[in-house]
């Protein structure tokens, strides 16, 4: 299966590297309409959400991306990716607005407040994993169809809604591929049901 990493800016290479370790996955950089149309699944990486959103608008990729996601293409957003998928953002307007979550940006503060937590991530992984938070967002509220996967100190940091998976943290910055494997399983199931 063909999995794209949105190649505007941010941790693109790191996601590609993780995908390449999973059997039967062809990992590609995706930044043109042609790239995006050919994918079975898409990862929106970490980076600066304002910068990525700006380029998505400038190169008219917003409608195509929304259409593909609403059409059922599985998508996984890490950090900036979560912000881009969110229906609403505290203090500013949403970007792709496809997922029924409201997020707070830079919710933990400046880089000095970035941190690593270690905890299990059921149903993704039962053993504790290092979770890397870099100027991270979290989910402040969500609709009924959103499944909360992980909370840290009462803040939602991982969630799923139908074909959409989001995490505030960056599994691509660790050596672990569990979250990527979980996402690939989502893509596999989506392919089977179509």
């Amino acid at each position, binding site marked *: 299966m063909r999995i794209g990493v949105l190649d505007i800016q*941010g941790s693109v290479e790191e996601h590609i590297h993780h995908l390449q370790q999973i059997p039967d996955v062809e990992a590609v950089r995706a930044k043109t309409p042609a790239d995006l149309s050919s994918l079975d699944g898409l990862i929106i990486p970490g*980076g*600066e959400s304002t*910068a990525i959103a*700006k380029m998505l608008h400038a190169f008219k990729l917003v409608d195509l991306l929304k259409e593909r996601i609403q059409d059922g293409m599985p998508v996984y957003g890490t950090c900036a990716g979560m912000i881009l998928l969110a229906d609403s953002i505290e203090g500013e307007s949403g970007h792709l607005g496809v997922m029924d979550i409201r997020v707070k940006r830079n919710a933990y503060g400046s*880089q000095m407040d970035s941190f*690593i937590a270690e905890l299990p991530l059921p149903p993704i992984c039962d053993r504790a994993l290092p979770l890397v938070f870099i*100027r991270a967002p979290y989910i402040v509220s969500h609709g009924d169809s959103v499944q909360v996967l992980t909370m840290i100190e009462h803040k939602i940091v991982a969630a799923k809604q139908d074909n959409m998976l989001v995490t505030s943290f960056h599994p691509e910055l660790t050596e672990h591929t569990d979250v990527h494997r979980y996402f690939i399983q989502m893509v596999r199931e989506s392919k089977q049901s179509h």
Partner: protein
Amino acid sequence: MNQRYELNKNLAQMLKGGVIMDVVTAEQARIAEEAGAVAVMALERVPADIRKDGGVARMSDPKMIKSIQEAVSIPVMAKVRIGHIMEAKVLEAIKADYIDESEVLTPADEEYHIDKRAFAIPFVCGARNLGEALRRIGEGASMIRTKGEAGTGNVVEAVRHMRQINKDIRSIRTMDSEELMSAAKEMGAPFHLVEQVAKEGHLPVVNFAAGGIATPADAALMMQLGCDGVFVGSGIFKSANPKKRAEAIVKAVTYFNDPLIVAEVSEDLGEPMVGINMDEINQVYAARGW
């Protein structure tokens, strides 16, 4: 400390493929963010003005940095003088996101750089070659930028430094393990980092280009040479139409391998900053740093 260093290298990874812009006011910071900058560098005067006005260039007024932190949501970086431990402590105290220990400001210490491992806040430092980059990383820098020659609008030095780093890496890649110690001695770099680069084929931290980038094509050129992103200093706010030029440079960095897009964004940008040739300058900033 180790975990903090990893987090600091991680933030630089999030900036890859992006443009970091010099700003001197909150208003400029907003323009930069709106144009798609991944971070801003808050400073008192852009390098072209430091060059023109002369005098001692120092860390900015903390009040100005705080006003920029309030104005934008992207990371805010700020410069300190080489070796000025106290300016760095001040920026750490006001929770800047990144410190640039920069040769563009007047050095506070002509022998030593800051021991950056003693800080929680991340540092980016300039380098002209692999040895200099690895000395800074050895001191705890979590990001490197080529020095180029700031405030000139002339990309020639940034190209020279980027090519030199690439050449140095290629050269140690082909060395036997016995040769690496002599190479480390020769370039004045910590041996374990020389070994690591020889094995991995790239710097252990993110490397941006800086110093003299003035046009979208300049920025795309630096990306073609293999850097991870670019800093643009005087190039934006010393040009005729900063907003348009800032956006064009961001687009050119994202689509650096598509000359048609670089052509399109280069149209009608108005006057670029006035460029200076290397033999016309009386102070080479890149020579500062040891």
